[in-house]
């Protein structure tokens, strides 16, 4: 089969050992004329060293303000197949678990209604289907819905929550990341599909401080598993590790609070001083395990650099008892979320993420607004400048 567009530059990217995305576009193009045009346009970008997509343009399905990203080529005549080349975001399964049956169907719909190309997965966690036309959107959407899948977030709304695989396969998980991710996604369908926020809002759930879903740097509200009681130590296994690993150098000396040491052959941990960083457990998973009183810390405000610089999640709730609250349909958490969203709604400006709002109004004002008390766990250290805004009630201390 002759190629519709010559792609000498892209062909260079079929060389080398790593699996080639060019080969993948070509495989999709074999079945889809529009993807042939996509190939052509990308080749032209490689030649011109510039993108050839127009900015924005609408795409979506009825009753939803989110879930699709509109995309139009600058050269509809040259590449008519990508005159419209929208992408559709399909909410992934918690933990990205699938079976072959459903995956084949997902791919099938992408081929039937789109360009046969998918992102597995997008950076937020959606299954992305590339190359849809607006007039096919509804049909594709319903096909996925019939398979039991809905659209993900987009625009100024709650973005598709995602999580690490947690208790499904990981011995480190301190709470059920898959379940809370699923439950909250279901609870906030309206907030996901109909953008009414000032800007995007992201939840991510990691089962422990390793943060395998990078929640601390990429979500407005990050849940990071932790525990309250003591690390469980299997001293026999410790002794086994000592045989093969320099435990002093690689484990103990790297504990951030220096709260562990050997007493004779036994490993001792000063648990009240442990910050649940996971390092020792990572290094000796057979010997050490998180305690029994498990839950999650909640960090707020992470985001990408624009406009005021990149932000990491800031500690707000040192310990949230996920399991207990889940029995109450997450009543406590939902109240907190609602307080946050209300405050954001009232005081935030357009295109201001929650982290930027916190920074602008000040953490204390934000805390008062959402009904939390300041605690030392929130700060790296107390203030070092003397410009204290005393208030009247304090006068007669």
């Amino acid at each position, binding site marked *: 089969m002759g190629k519709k567009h010559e792609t000498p530059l892209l062909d260079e990217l079929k060389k080398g050992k790593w699996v080639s995305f060019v080969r993948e576009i070509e495989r999709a193009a074999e079945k889809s004329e529009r993807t042939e045009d996509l190939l052509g346009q990308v080749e032209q970008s490689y030649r011109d060293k510039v993108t050839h997509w127009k900015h924005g343009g609408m795409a979506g399905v009825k009753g939803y303000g989110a879930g699709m990203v509109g995309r139009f080529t600058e050269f509809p005549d040259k590449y008519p197949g990508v005159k419209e080349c929208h992408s559709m975001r399909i909410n992934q399964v918690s933990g990205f678990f699938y079976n072959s049956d459903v995956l084949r169907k997902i791919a099938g719909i992408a081929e039937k209604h789109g360009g046969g*190309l998918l992102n597995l997965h997008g950076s937020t966690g959606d299954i992305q289907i590339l190359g849809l036309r607006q007039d096919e959107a509804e049909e594709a959407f319903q096909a996925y819905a019939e398979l039991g899948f809905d659209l993900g977030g987009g625009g100024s709304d709650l973005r598709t929550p995602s999580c690490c695989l947690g208790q499904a396969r990981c011995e480190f998980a301190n709470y059920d990341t898959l379940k809370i991710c699923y439950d909250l996604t*279901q609870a906030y369908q309206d907030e996901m599909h109909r953008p009414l926020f000032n800007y995007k809002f992201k939840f991510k759930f990691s089962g422990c401080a390793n943060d395998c879903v990078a929640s601390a740097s990429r979500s407005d509200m990050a849940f990071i598993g932790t525990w309250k009681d003591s690390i469980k130590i299997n001293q026999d296994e410790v002794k086994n590790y000592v045989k093969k690993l320099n435990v002093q150098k690689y484990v103990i000396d790297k504990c951030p609070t220096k709260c562990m040491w050997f007493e004779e052959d036994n490993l001792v941990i000063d648990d009240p001083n442990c910050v649940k960083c996971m390092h020792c457990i990572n290094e000796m998973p057979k010997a050490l395990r998180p305690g029994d009183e498990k839950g999650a810390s909640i960090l707020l405000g992470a985001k990408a650099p624009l406009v005021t610089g990149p932000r990491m999640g800031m500690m707000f709730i040192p310990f949230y008892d996920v399991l207990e609250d889940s029995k109450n349909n997450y009543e406590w958490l939902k109240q907190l979320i609602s307080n946050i969203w209300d405050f954001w709604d009232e005081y935030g400006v357009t295109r201001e993420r929650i982290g930027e709002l916190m920074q602008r109004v000040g953490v204390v004002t934000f805390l008062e607004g959402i009904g939390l008390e300041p605690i030392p766990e929130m700060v790296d250290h107390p203030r070092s400048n003397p410009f204290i805004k005393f208030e009247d009630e304090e006068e007669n201390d």
Partner: protein
Amino acid sequence: MPEEAKNKRLTDIGPHDFHDYLPPVIKKNYGKWAYHEILDAGSMVHVAESGDKLYTVRVGSPRLVSGSFVRDLCDLADKYCSGYLRFTTRNNVEFLLEDEKNIEPLKQDIAKLGLAAGGIGNVVANIVHTQGWVHCHTSASDASGVVKSVMDDLYEYFVEEKLPAKVRIAFACCLNMCGSVASSDIAILGTHRKPPRINQERLLNLCEIPSTIAACPTNSIRPDTQDGKQTLRINEETCVFCGSCYTVCPAMPIADPATDGLSIWVGGKVSNARTKPTFSKLVIPFIPNDPPRWPKVVEAVKTILDAYKEGAESGERVVEWIERIGWPRFFKITGFKFTKYHVDDFRLAETTMNYSSHTRL
């Protein structure tokens, strides 16, 4: 699916329930895993308290895949693990096996498909990345092409555990940073170097003046009038080419073939293991776009990785290594030039300086 549902338009059904796709061994041992062991860079075993074992074989993916690719995976899953598979948070594929004996044959089939088993343990993980010229309008560079070029070069580090610790590389094609660029061991970032060009006509139709002004991190956008019409003016003296205005206002394109390219950052980290999460820091302010294979970018990443491999102690992430040896030595070892661009001049710039006499001489 019941009949009435079929005829009704389905909305707000939410994501599929994950329970439906968990393999039986997971369902049985959910929340009851005891420990894991890494068998090699392509496989590991998780052992449950019950003694049950789950074997995982991880396979690199370009993330942008065809339906055929998906079916290839499904075929292997059917053949070796009752059809169960998952994707990782870094876009790798994981086959979930109950039978250890299936690992080797599966790996052979994987190789036959031109794919690589790997990515577990102290490796270069799959590069988290974004759309680039394949789909986005703001990109300063392609995404997948750079990633492919780099991964070809680092292939050995994906398929074998040869590094002191995990190395996470991320790519984003513009400062919106849809990848994890702000906090990766090594990050590659699409970078514009010219102010946006204002299209006065389109501006009036397409853009909201106040939100465009508010989008600018350096206050470089001012309202203006031209021929009696309301428009915007850019202070080119202060514009930092971030493209934020273009994101909000399509009438201010910023991409420029002659001056766009990439910058390189290192020493970010998300995990809380040992040290707190930290951002990536600038090491090469600019490398011009050089498609199709961006040789200088590839070389830069390799230089960093080689220096890291050579210098870091076992268990040290990139940032931990650099902080131990110091940034001056990092620049010396890699040969990268330290310039005025490396000295922060944004909002919190002053907090990045060396307030001490600590210095290597």
